């Protein structure tokens, strides 16, 4: 009886309903494997906000989050829990490029959409929505090379050897500096993406090489490196890449650092969410939209902060906490460009 009533009701509003689409509702799981960084917190919060924003368009997006310091096996556990709970899609900031191939295959077999963000995955059963880490590094390396007028001694401070994003970034700056024969890379050190280690490493490098002109350093380690440069009284003589948290940009502006920073926006997961929702709504990807190392990546724009737009970025950061990062999101409207 109830069924008949519903059918009748649906038939009567059929024409209007088809235009406005019946209230759609999706459940999306977010998996994060590292909690020791405000960037990751901001990433999840922006994704949650993006999900809530879909309500205005009449689409209900429920987000369930699993976040903790877990290794690959723990993150496989996240995906299993999502599968057992019955989500429509999983967004993952993956801890390994290859280790999720079997679990992604199993998830795909159950019709789950898997979208990786922030780090690319090799699986054919997943897509990647995020920045091109290599291009991210090339952009700031190019800035450094141009700032030094293509000439000088450089040191590099990297994250963790073997980490895929790190390897792509290293490949990126190497490619750029190779184009400038008068730029000499004196040393390349690893500091585990740790601010304090970055500072210590920079101190050692400054002590070893008195004639450093430029420093290429990643993320939060840049804050530490700049502290070491300040302590050595070399702010005037050294150009170094920076980072994008409000605290650092404030010091950058006050102490007039000669710096530039590629932005890896925490909004990448929100961007991935917007793409995922459009796909779940039944849209099909345009031909040729995928590229990257594994042919499954949609690269999104990478903003850049330097002396020219530092003031604007600080203005946008007003009222935000000190750890807030410059961000950018591919909005639901912008994400339409990837679809037919």
């Amino acid at each position, binding site marked *: 009886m109830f069924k008949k009533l519903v059918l009748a009701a649906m038939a009567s509003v059929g024409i209007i309903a088809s235009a406005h689409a019946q209230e759609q509702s999706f459940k999306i799981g977010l998996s994060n494997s590292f909690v020791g960084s405000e960037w990751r917190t901001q990433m999840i919060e922006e994704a949650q906000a993006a999900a809530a924003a879909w309500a205005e368009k009449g689409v209900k997006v429920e987000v369930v989050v699993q976040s903790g310091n877990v*290794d690959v096996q723990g993150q496989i556990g996240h995906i299993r829990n999502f599968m057992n709970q019955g989500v429509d899609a999983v967004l993952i900031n993956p801890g390994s490029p290859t280790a999720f191939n079997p679990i992604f295959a199993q998830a795909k077999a159950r019709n789950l959409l898997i979208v990786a963000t922030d780090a690319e995955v090799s699986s054919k059963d997943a897509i990647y929505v995020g920045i091109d880490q290599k291009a991210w590094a090339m952009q700031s390396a190019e800035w450094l090379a141009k700032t030094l007028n293509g000439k000088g001694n450089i040191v590099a401070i990297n994250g963790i050897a073997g980490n895929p994003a790190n390897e792509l970034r290293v490949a990126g700056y190497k490619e750029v500096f190779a184009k400038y024969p008068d730029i000499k890379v004196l040393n390349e050190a690893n500091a585990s993406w740790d601010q304090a280690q970055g500072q210590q490493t920079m101190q050692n490098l400054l002590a070893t090489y008195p004639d450093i002109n430029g420093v290429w350093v990643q993320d939060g380690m840049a804050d530490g490196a700049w502290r070491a440069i300040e302590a050595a009284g070399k702010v005037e003589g050294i150009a170094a890449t920076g980072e994008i948290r409000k605290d650092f940009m404030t010091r950058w502006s006050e102490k007039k650092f000669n710096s530039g920073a590629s932005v890896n926006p925490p909004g990448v997961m929100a961007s991935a969410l917007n793409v995922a929702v459009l796909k779940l709504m039944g849209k099909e990807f345009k031909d040729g939209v995928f590229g990257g190392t594994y042919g499954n990546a949609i690269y999104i724009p990478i903003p850049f902060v330097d002396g020219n737009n530092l003031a604007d970025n600080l203005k946008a950061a007003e009222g935000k906490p000190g750890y807030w990062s410059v961000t950018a999101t591919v909005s639901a409207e912008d994400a339409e460009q990837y679809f037919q």
Partner: protein
Amino acid sequence: MTMFNLLRRQPWVITVLVFLILVTVNTVLQPSFVEPSVMQSNLATFLPLILVAIGQTYVILAGDIDLSVGSIVALVNVVTVTVIAALGGTLGAVFGGMAAGFVTGIACGLINGFFISGLRFQPIVTTFATGIIFAGLAIWVLPQAGLPVPDAYWMTYTESVLGIPVVAWVLIAGVVFTLVVSRLPFLTRLTAVGGNRTGAFQTGLSLGGLRIGAYVISGAFASFAALCLTGETASGDPLLGASLALSSISAVVLGGTALAGGFGNATGSVVGALVLGMIGNVIFFAGLPFEYQTLVQGLIVLAALAGGVFVTRR
């Protein structure tokens, strides 16, 4: 009081109770928990930690500790996939790779045992250092994650044999191993080494051999865990297993083994590892906000440990 005495002598009974509570809570929050496919997937998730914890137990029973197990897992994983790829990815290559991985794990255990028992190095610092060395070797063998293994490897791992999932067979084999070892004089002697090292030495026990044996067992179980992880991930990753060392020690202590050595059993560690895994699940299905998930997980682990401490305190 007899109940209390039982708990005092068998503190892992508390952990079994905690496990049953977690299973009940999980089933209420997620009714599908009892479905065979869901249980299989959970077991697959917990299995590597269970295996590493079994091996860790014997080291801890002897009054030592092994902080290098996570790195051994990574090294065995990359050696296995590299050898499989080098031999051409045939069925024979898969077995060759698994054998090479297993030998690597045993060798790591021998190295730990040699430094600690042979040269009398301090166990915490030594295995911390060898852990760094093994991790470094793993990056040297396979600088970047990759090298997929043949599909047959991971597909077999997710399948069933004689109606029972492969992961369950591995668990059964592990538990049978612990039960068999618990009947052997080896375990009594090992426990004596951990409980009263001077006394054990004076009774003429071969301390060196026993302690090295424990590290070799730990290395062997780390390699079993790595082979399971290879089935899970179907590829090599030099950064695998980073959290396994401390998790396995927690599992051992939850399972009723004294961290100072001389008391406990490996079967309890299996339950301890299951509890650690279940805590993560319950937190997810309880729908906690993500900011609190890590905190609550830590609190529950602490509470579970406290249960054992209060019971065994005299």
